[in-house]
């Protein structure tokens, strides 16, 4: 089970400089604000796994969650697909909870199915996978947690005293 559940493992700080080009706050906000359907590659049906935490949260906030995991029949009440190519409807974001060596294959599939964005969770650092997706015309985010970024930018992360880094004089959102 090393290929799932690495959502919020600490980022490899040495690789951080290389991936920082894929951490643009404006791109992150654009994806969060425009996405409707999110395929989560490596989504576990175990409610204690980080991938389930993230999927549960995003589903709660109105996104359609599509489990992609050959070892699951369903997760979060949605039927699971063995691969991205098996998903019979358009996917906006491919959110990846797999070990970095599997990411290039996932990225190629994401390009093939016409996804708009590839999102690699905390610790899922694959510069090669990121390049494949970027060259395929996708927006790319690397080494960021989709739940954290949603909660930071649009949600309630500040309710628990976390440093969201969001500073502004407009009214807060009510998500």
């Amino acid at each position, binding site marked *: 089970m090393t290929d799932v*559940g690495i*959502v*919020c*493992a*600490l980022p490899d*700080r040495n690789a951080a400089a290389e991936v920082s080009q894929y951490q643009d*706050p*404006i791109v992150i*906000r654009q994806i969060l*604000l425009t996405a409707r359907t999110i395929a989560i590659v490596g989504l576990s049906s175990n*409610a*204690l796994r*980080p991938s389930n*935490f993230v999927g*549960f*949260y995003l589903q*709660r906030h109105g996104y359609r969650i599509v489990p992609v995991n050959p070892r699951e029949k369903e997760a979060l009440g949605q039927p699971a697909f063995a691969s991205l190519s098996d998903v019979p409807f358009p996917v906006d974001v491919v959110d990846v909870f797999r070990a970095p060596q599997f990411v290039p294959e996932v990225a190629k599939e994401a390009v093939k199915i016409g996804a708009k964005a590839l999102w690699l969770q*905390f*610790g899922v650092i694959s510069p090669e996978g990121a390049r494949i997706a970027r060259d395929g015309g996708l927006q790319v985010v690397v080494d960021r*947690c989709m739940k*954290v970024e949603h*909660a930071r*930018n*649009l*949600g*309630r*992360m*500040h*309710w*628990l*005293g*976390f*440093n*969201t*880094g*969001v*500073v*502004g*004089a*407009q*009214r*807060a*959102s*009510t998500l």
Partner: protein
Amino acid sequence: MTEIDPRAFGFDTRAVHAGQRPDPYTGARAVPIFQTTSYVFEDAESAAAYFNLQEYGNTYTRIMNPTVATFEERVGNLEGGAGGVAFASGLAAQAAAFFTMLVPGDHVVASSALYGGSVTQLKHLSRKLSLELTFVDPDSIDAWKDALRENTKLLYGETIGNPGGNVLDIQAVADVAHGIGAPLMIDNTFATPYLCRPIEFGADIVVHSATKFIGGHGTSIGGVVVEGGTFDWSNGRYPIVSDPSLAYHGLAFHDTFGMYGYLMKLRAESLRDLGGCLSPFNAFLFLLGLETLPLRMDRHVENALGVARFLQQHPAVERVRYPGLPDSPYAPLVAKYLPKGAGAVFAFDLAGGREAGQRFIQSLQLWSHLANVGDAKSLVIHPASTTHRQLNDDELAAAGISAGTIRLSVGLETLDDLVWDLERGLAAAAGSRVNGVAEVVA
């Protein structure tokens, strides 16, 4: 949705804004005081999600409160950390920081120049919770190294020590800690994040008594813990942080919340179980304090330096232990860690012992004789006749205090007035009676 430009705002901007967006329902510009114990759930599913920590939601003010959260995020932001968790006092914050990461049998290495209340807390905790404890001379990096054991789980120092004004070489001690996979915790109360941000130099946890300069007006007791978010709690030495939690159905905090895992555990377990939560009203007063922190600290430092220089040239003063003086042995460390100033709390030694100290205190008109620091008002205390009264001269010496030691917390008054008052006190200490302004040397 307004697009947010991800600008790196300055410290003063963040001291005023961080942690707060105007209230979405009312538009209230000031931080509202949410004086409520509890929060109505939208529905049963939301309630379950909050209690399972699957969603960021308010349940009960012992664990979270929107006014307190604004304060927590603001301090977390100013310190450059992943966030903060506030407590009813600085000592409650410190105890909870320990409680979250330490188990019986763990070893803690701490600076001998920590605030006295911290030393006492550590001594009591070590006995009651079977922790091993070593106090070291904070100025000696070798002493920190030599104290390490296989079970050393935490190194703990203070930015500016007490009463010697020891400035800690934070980066060097952080390297020592990280060499054995342990975090460095720093009490940054005397510096505030305006003067020093220990996380920038490698510290992992920062604790504050917000009672002092953060509040700044002597109105409220409170504390806060900030964590940097970069320490690897899953390095195998901290199963209490990384292993599945019995209190949350097997949830593994560090695996699930990553860089926020320690803070989440600090809140969801330690604050929840120990119960020392900060009152929303106190958080509101601390937020007002933070808005003017940069302005106040500049003035505190300016006045402290002025007072220290005056004392240094006075014949009734044996020694001034302000690290901000150019001839302080800590000057190089001040240049590195405290370039905006070495704070406004320091001690000096009066010639003449206990009686001189008492006469000095009694003849002051403007300086308040009390046991606190970090107020807008200038404060003074004579440890030998108050906080350390039970100690004999030998025991005082071991604590770095002489019979004539006076501790000052320099406030925001007119510097000439502060010096004028001290001059009267020093004259009294030296033996000449001062009964009123008529005898004061102008």
